[in-house]
């Protein structure tokens, strides 16, 4: 605990000593370990978001392994005889029946299944927020362009694996989603028909796709994710973290906590808390209750009984499909079908621009210098405004994916809602861009912090009607010069 108590008992020290020497004699790890224990990690909270994603992945793997012991990835039709009475006697695939068994018959199965699903939702959300952190602070700039692209690939893989995962259950809702994905593949010019037939194993509906999605979901994509995540972390390790500007921080140093013991303790605590929240959600917050949707039947759509919204990370594509006007290209005996544009072009352009962004920004700003100190969002008004507008664009698409739900809530005709979204999809991002850029420029000009008192004290009105300057509220912060003069102690790097 405190330094006085840190003295170890001799026998414990001996045990650690013996164990370490055993390993070091054989693997020669002491030089690396000594450097690693002293590695510095920034203290700012925003650097923990990526870790939340990583810890969700750990929970996904643990709960996922448990689920594979009970899930049957087969389309063979069986008659359900399990504990969920409303579906007894109904014909369904083994995949769906085994999902019901996990939910109702396997002890602890439902908690594991719901934790798995929640972990997937939070996993992708944390990746997106982490991406925003990196984008808005300019952390993707030289020398970190490659890791930006590795991170984006992880996002693509995570979204894909989420889709494969919920499609396995063969319920009415997910089957509808698979049908939509098949139709988007079909709409791809020239190769679309072959693409759809080879990937889904023939014309939809068929019995091939579940075994394919299963091996993709439990082996191929997770292996890619774990491999790329390792690369992502190795690159961060090699390049060291970025850091915000601040007292004692320069382009040439890194200020924060040492890996051992401070950062390791913090990070372990974060893992436990992420796992705890996912356990609470998995136990108390119902997610994807497939027994209410029923088994997939090609003649039914899920929306007949409930909304037909995909998981949130696919919602923007569904929203785009909904508000796309009824246009398509027909010429020379060929068709470029409508879903190609919102379903393939839009996501393609989205990720294409994201992949190229570090290089595009370099081209526009002419800034080719390496950067280890981060921008505050206000320091780059154009980038920040563009990012905010982009988020607004996808936010509107996500809302548009619920146009039927919104029509129900506000008792407005779906046509009106859809037409409104067709306007908002352009108007809102434009407005967000202009406002954000203005706010950033204002903040940068005055160098004010929105939540802190301005430097130099406050002007207050006295009882007699005059004005006088007083010191800012005593929040324990010393005035600026002291902070500027402060230097963090150097790490003992050996």
């Amino acid at each position, binding site marked *: *605990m405190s330094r006085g*108590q840190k003295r170890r008992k001799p026998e414990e020290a001996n045990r650690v000593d013996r164990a370490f020497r055993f390993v070091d004699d054989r693997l020669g790890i002491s030089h690396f370990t000594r450097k690693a224990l002293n*590695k*510095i990690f920034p*203290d700012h909270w925003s650097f923990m978001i990526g870790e939340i994603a990583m810890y969700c992945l750990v929970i996904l793997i643990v709960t996922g392994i448990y689920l594979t012991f009970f899930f049957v990835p087969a389309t063979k039709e069986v008659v359900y005889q399990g504990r969920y009475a409303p579906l007894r006697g109904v014909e369904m695939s083994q995949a769906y029946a085994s999902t019901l068994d996990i939910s109702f018959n396997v002890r602890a199965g*439902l*908690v594991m299944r*719901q934790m798995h699903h929640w972990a997937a939702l939070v996993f992708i959300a944390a990746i997106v927020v982490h991406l925003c952190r990196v984008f808005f602070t300019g952390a993707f700039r030289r020398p970190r362009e490659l890791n930006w692209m590795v991170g984006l690939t992880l996002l693509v893989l995570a979204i894909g694996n989420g889709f494969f995962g919920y499609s396995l259950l063969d319920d009415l809702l997910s089957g*509808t989603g698979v*049908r*939509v994905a098949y139709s988007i593949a*079909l*709409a791809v010019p020239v190769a679309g*028909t*072959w693409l759809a*037939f080879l*990937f*889904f*194993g*023939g*014309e*939809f509906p068929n019995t091939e796709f579940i075994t394919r999605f299963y091996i993709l979901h439990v082996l191929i994509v997770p292996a890619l994710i774990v491999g790329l995540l390792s690369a992502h972390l190795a690159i961060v390790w090699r390049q060291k973290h970025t850091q915000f500007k601040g007292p*004692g921080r320069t382009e*040439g*140093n*890194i200020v924060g906590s*040492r890996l051992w013991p*401070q950062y390791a303790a913090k990070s372990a605590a*974060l893992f*436990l*808390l992420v*796992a*705890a*929240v996912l*356990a*609470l959600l998995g*136990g*108390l917050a119902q997610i994807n209750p497939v027994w209410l949707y029923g088994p997939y039947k*090609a*003649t039914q*759509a*899920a929306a007949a009984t409930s909304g*037909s919204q995909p998981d949130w990370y696919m919602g923007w594509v*569904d929203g785009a*499909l*909904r508000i796309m*006007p*009824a246009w398509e290209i027909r010429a020379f005996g*060929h*068709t470029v*079908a*409508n*879903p190609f544009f919102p379903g393939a072009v839009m996501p393609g352009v989205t990720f294409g621009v994201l992949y190229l962004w570090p290089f595009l920004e370099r081209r526009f700003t002419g800034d080719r210098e390496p950067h280890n100190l981060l921008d505050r969002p206000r320091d780059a008004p154009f980038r920040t405004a563009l990012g905010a507008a982009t988020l607004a664009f996808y936010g509107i698409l996500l809302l548009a994916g619920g146009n*039927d739900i919104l029509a129900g809530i506000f008792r407005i005709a779906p046509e009106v809602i*859809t037409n409104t979204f067709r306007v908002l999809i352009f108007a809102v991002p434009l407005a967000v861009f202009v406002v954000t850029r203005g706010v950033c420029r204002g903040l940068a000009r005055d160098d004010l912090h929105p939540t802190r008192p301005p430097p130099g004290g406050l002007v207050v009105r006295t009882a007699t009607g005059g004005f006088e300057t007083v010191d800012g509220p005593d929040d*324990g912060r010393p005035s600026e010069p002291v902070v500027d003069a402060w230097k*963090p*102690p150097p*790490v003992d*790097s050996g």
Partner: protein
Amino acid sequence: MEPRPTPTGDDPRLPAPVAERRIAVAFVASTLAALGLAGVYVAGGQPQAEGALLFVALSGLGVGAVQWARQIDDGPTAGERGELAGSEADQEAVVEEVADDVADLGRRRLLSRLLLGAVGALGLAALFPIRSLGPSPGHSLERTAWRPGRRLVDSEGHRVRPDTLTVGGTITVFPEGAVQAGDSQVVLIRLAAGRNRPRRGRETWAPDGNIAYSKICTHVGCPVGLYQEDTHELVCPCHQSTFDVLDGARPRFGPATRGLPQLPLAVDGEGFLVAQSDFTEPVGPGFWNRS
């Protein structure tokens, strides 16, 4: 405790006895919850209790760890970053080594081309097994199981007569003997006499007001399940494409660009509804080879 070397002098550390008490409470709570979790499992399991107890067990450990981390936090330290790029000499050595070999390969033009050709051919040959993943599309997207004279049956297999439906009624029908054929599902609607405005050439397709359209949305293939009798519209529940039943199922709203293909109907000698032929155009979503 030594003062923390922070820029602002903030020190999150608590007096040691207070911190130790808090950590102890958190760890004890965690232990009790974990034992409770095991108990719930043995007693038969209960999802909500399992989730809540797991939450307490994990967050007890987590809260204890947070406190502990705070106590050992002795403030920020600074480390040197160091250069990423290697020394000039290292860089040159690597480039020379590799560049020489590449140049050598360039000089042996015939061999390097043959090597490229062999690797390329092997790569190409390795692509062929992908073909086994699915059947050739052929004309499968342009055909369904409907044939001239094939009877309409409902999902139970019962045949349908022109008066099976009352006016305004609707059911999903299939070709007799192919109830499972996903691409052949058809929505049959009975319209009041004289309401239908048939396209040219389709005048005889709807005997006694029985009109049949493919149930597969031309947008992305959802079953067009909602029939609104007052407006004579078929609505797709997925993306709200809306089709005018009286006007050849022309799309009236939403992302669908084409009407639902109409199945030509007739009545056979025994008084059952039958198809005159297959659909006259491909059903379902658009694709490249669809004209």
